[in-house]
């Protein structure tokens, strides 16, 4: 597609449920990032993939968060046993390899945990 596509756009989960958020990056973009954006805050880095390799997961807030990109294209962010503090917008971004600059963001998946 022309841009980064994320689904679902909105997800409501009961506390304790597992959720999976999908990101389809721009074709040809080998770098993929997940960010978490709490209400009224700037995006916070979660994890980074280069192709299928997860090279940095230092921003994942707990071991309940897991991300994968098995074929180097589509990525899934999974949150197990969701908690209320997980409520946020989860943004996916992709970029060309190397220090070319701009990250291209999707519209985000808004997660609300009740």
């Amino acid at each position, binding site marked *: 597609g022309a841009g*980064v596509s994320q689904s679902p756009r909105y997800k409501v989960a009961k506390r304790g449920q597992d959720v999976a958020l999908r990101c389809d990056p721009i074709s040809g973009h080998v*770098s993929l*990032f997940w*960010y978490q954006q*709490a*209400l*009224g*805050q*700037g*995006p*916070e*880095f979660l994890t*980074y*993939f*280069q192709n299928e390799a997860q*090279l*940095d997961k*230092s921003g994942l807030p707990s071991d309940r968060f897991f991300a994968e990109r098995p074929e180097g294209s589509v990525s899934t962010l999974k949150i197990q046993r969701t908690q209320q503090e997980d409520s946020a917008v989860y*943004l996916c*971004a992709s*970029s060309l390899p*190397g*220090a*070319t*600059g*701009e*990250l*291209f*963001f*999707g*519209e*985000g998946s808004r997660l609300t945990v009740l």
Partner: protein
Amino acid sequence: GESVGLHLPTLSVQEGDNSIINCAYSNSASDYFIWYKQESGKGPQFIIDIRSNMDKRQGQRVTVLLNKTVKHLSLQIAATQPGDSAVYFCAERSPSNSGYALNFGKGTSLLVTP
């Protein structure tokens, strides 16, 4: 009631006036800076970027100024229009950032009144 995290700095300008949004950064090793615009319910959208070997860069109606001495970045929007109303984030990257990930500031809300 009041919610934690909604206290974004807010700039209110009249349509047609010029806007200046400021941002401070802390990492003297940062070599790339970028401004994003985020409208409600959407992902961040690229506005303009600047590398650390420059102190000014101009785009269409926008100018970014970089003062590395005081670690300050500003975004100037000329002849502000109602469509410019959004939250604006500055972001920076240092060479040590994994995959050239961006670190975002907290954002400034720009409100343009007719």
